[in-house]
């Protein structure tokens, strides 16, 4: 079973040389920590920076330089700042190759819900709806079950949607799953996790091939 860093590490393996990547708040943010040294990859944060670097050294933080999670950050050589319209032109115009974001629910048809729980305080969708509606390549990073123990991989989302039919791949603490032809397809299992336990933890239709390799996380 993977912890949050393990999920981020596995997702980092999906990132290709030359890609611009948008990382959502939470587990997705951690992905940046596991990109191999020297790999040509740039991180976009939708509040207006391309070429986001690590957190600043203590005392160097600048209130004017933050990421979409409102965290203080730094800029790498070659970085650029821009306004919100230009930022979403990049996203909507599919100039960003990969979007990684969290979810409350994912359905076997690729629907995603991650912004609203009826009756509870609604925080808003932020940039998530623009990201999922536009990205060619969306990976969801999340726990396989919610805090109540219920599966987050469903036949149909029960919560208000963020986007329809857009998720291609999900990486959880238990497995890597692809979404195609209206079903989840088990691709890899987390170290030490059995196929049976993944089947049990998945509420939506799950296609299991004869051989399911274990993830290689160094």
């Amino acid at each position, binding site marked *: 079973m993977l912890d949050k860093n393990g999920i981020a590490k596995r997702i980092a393996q999906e990132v290709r040389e030359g890609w611009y990547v948008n990382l959502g708040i939470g587990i997705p943010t951690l992905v940046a920590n596991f990109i191999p040294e020297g790999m040509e990859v740039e991180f976009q944060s939708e509040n207006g920076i391309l070429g986001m670097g690590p*957190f600043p050294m203590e005392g160097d*933080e600048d209130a*004017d*330089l933050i990421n979409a999670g409102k965290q203080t950050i730094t800029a790498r050589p070659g970085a650029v700042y821009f306004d919100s319209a230009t*930022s979403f032109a990049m996203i909507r115009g599919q100039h960003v190759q990969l979007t990684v974001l969290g979810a409350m629910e994912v359905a076997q048809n690729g629907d995603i819900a991650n912004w609203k729980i009826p009756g509870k305080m609604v925080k808003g*969708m*932020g*940039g998530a709806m623009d990201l999922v509606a536009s990205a060619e390549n969306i990976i969801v990073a999340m726990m396989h079950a919610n805090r109540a123990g219920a599966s987050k991989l469903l036949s149909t989302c029960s919560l208000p949607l963020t986007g329809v039919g857009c998720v291609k791949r999900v990486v959880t603490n238990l497995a890597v799953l692809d979404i195609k032809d209206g079903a989840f397809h088990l691709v890899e299992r987390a170290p030490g996790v059995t196929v049976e336990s993944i089947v049990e933890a998945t509420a939506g239709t799950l296609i299991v091939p004869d051989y399911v390799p274990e993830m290689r996380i160094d």
Partner: protein
Amino acid sequence: MAITKSVNGPEAACDGVKSGMTLMLGGFGLCGIPECSIAELVKRGVDDLTCISNNAGVDDFGLGLLLQKRQIRKMISSYVGENDEFERQMLSGELEVDLIPQGSLAERCRAGGAGIPAFYTPAGFGTEVAEGKEVRDFNGKPHILESALTADFAFVKAWKGDAAGNLVFKATARNFNPMMAMAGTITVAEVEELVPLGTLSPNEIHTPGIFVQRIFQGAHYDKRIEQRTVQTR
């Protein structure tokens, strides 16, 4: 000769703001928000306001200050998760809230300033954001029709500016400010430093002065940090 937009301070800059008006306020989180104008709006006590701003501040800063005084009737935002008073007013029904995808919010402000009354975007298709909106397929993909946003007053905050209203922003404090500057009937810009005309390189100006009607140098900036994340040395 350049058209002079400079006014003495926030009081003169906010002249004409009335209860019931629609205001735009730049910033993302607490980054790049028009601090001095917000303080002046609190002081004036105008209420029944519709505020268009990506976020709603925190309890004791930014738009939270206007919420505390119940000056806002309706918020149009993309994310409002950092404010308990906001939550209370929203759940009790005192505050009307219209949530808009962040990219659509930015583009709708730009459209308002650019004389484009409506445009199609894929964002929000199939969600409650699309309810009541026209859906049309382009290149085999469904899009929804979004309309332009404008405001009676737009309040933006820049790093540097000149008397002609030309603005330069710093780092990610740029965010929504340029689009909102375009969309205000009267756009008020507050700047950390008002520099002499001709000092800003015409090549490096982010917001041309034509979009700004009033400009002043703020007396003081808090520039609070919401999430101070650092590496220890």
